[in-house]
């Protein structure tokens, strides 16, 4: 039973024999729950009959919803349906399975994020990847993308980013570790609905208005730092606290140096001072709570003076 990823483009090379030769023919391959409902179709592909077998290429973009679909082929000659076939085997659309290596990367990523949640000063979380100078994980994004390409989950890196341990790609590919819990419903990511809800939320947060999401909170957003070096990097998480619209905790962590908590309100600008270990200096970081629509709120870095 052929299995493909959601939305992948495939071509069915279909041997078709139409007699007699010289007829204007069309063939259409389509997937669906029945022959009336076309969830995906090649559309009519024209060819001229030769009276012998012809390999007709029928390109098809697979459905986006994971499911099992019947496959049908209709052949027309001079506009008349002369052959209607249903494939013996159905087509299965399933979310791509990560490799063991990719799962291991995601596991490390999940551990790092959990460390960050616990306030441990050991993580830097830019939007487009992850770097952990303490554990030497390095640029996790590159490793994960390379692995995803190597196992055929994605064709190219393109634009991708991570939220929690979920990888998102602009081509629609989403890679979710199976043990990971949805931050909304605390259930395992097992259903497309859960994934869609999560994805919608983070897309709205990061890619759209930076202010409003329509999903239910709490959620968290990791923002790219403007600067880092081998001894200092930071990230901050924004999350709801007790479901209060004005109680939000911005946590700023400095690897090797500690962290500072600050309570801010929507639209409020707040400066936190981050001590740099062994130097006696503090780094003032001005954060602005942009937007304010509920429940999605996002802190935005306004200034970052390392030697102030």
């Amino acid at each position, binding site marked *: 039973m052929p299995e493909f990823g959601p939305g992948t483009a495939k071509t*069915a090379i*279909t041997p078709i*024999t139409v*007699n*007699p030769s010289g007829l204007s023919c069309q063939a259409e391959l389509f997937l669906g729950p029945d022959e009336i409902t076309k969830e995906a179709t090649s559309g009519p592909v024209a060819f001229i009959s030769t009276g012998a077998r012809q390999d007709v290429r029928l390109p098809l973009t697979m459905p986006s919803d994971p499911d099992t679909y019947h496959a049908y082929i209709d*052949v027309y000659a*001079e506009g*008349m349906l002369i*052959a209607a076939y249903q494939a013996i085997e159905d087509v299965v659309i399933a979310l791509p399975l990560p490799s063991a290596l990719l799962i291991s990367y995601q596991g490390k990523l999940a551990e790092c994020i959990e460390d960050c949640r616990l306030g441990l000063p050991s993580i830097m979380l830019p939007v487009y990847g992850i770097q952990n100078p303490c554990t030497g994980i390095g640029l996790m994004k590159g490793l994960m993308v390379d692995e995803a390409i190597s196992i055929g989950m994605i064709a190219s890196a393109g634009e991708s980013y991570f939220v929690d341990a979920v990888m998102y790609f602009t081509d629609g590919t989403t890679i979710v570790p199976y043990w990971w819990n949805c931050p909304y419903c605390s259930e395992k990511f097992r259903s497309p609905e859960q994934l869609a809800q999560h994805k919608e939320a983070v897309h709205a947060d990061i890619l759209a208005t930076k202010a409003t999401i329509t999903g239910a909170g709490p959620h968290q957003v990791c923002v790219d730092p403007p600067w880092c070096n081998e001894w200092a990097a930071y990230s901050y998480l924004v999350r709801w606290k007790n479901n209060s619209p004005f109680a939000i905790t911005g946590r700023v962590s400095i690897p090797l140096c500690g962290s500072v908590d600050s309570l801010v309100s929507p639209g409020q600008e707040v400066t936190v001072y981050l001590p740099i270990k062994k130097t006696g200096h503090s780094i003032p970081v001005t954060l602005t709570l942009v937007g304010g629509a509920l429940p999605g709120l996002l802190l935005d870095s306004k200034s970052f003076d390392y030697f102030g």
Partner: protein
Amino acid sequence: MDFKKVKGNGPDRISLEMLDPVMLPGVSRTAVAPITVSPSGLACEAELFLGPNDATKVATSGRKSFLSTGTSQSVSLPVLMPSTGGVAYHVYLDVFVTGYRLLAYQATEDVIIPSGVVGPIVWD
């Protein structure tokens, strides 16, 4: 679809319009043939049939009776198309007068009964 005269003493050529020379197997179609037999008042029959030659009738309308008028008459000749597809069949039209074959025509175009076969798909 035009007919050429094979044998007989009727008009040199009878033109028979057929809009759809490609037919599906097993479908019922009616050919309307303009036939002129003179003089009027003769008991006539017409038969349209399909086959590889005029001796092998794969599908036929059977003999349809009409009375000659001395002018062109549109004679309806229903035919159940052959069930075997993938073949171009010759089309013949015979006209009988008082039991004797007067005209024998063959269409200049064949009737095509297409067939299609789909093999195993290979995904690329």
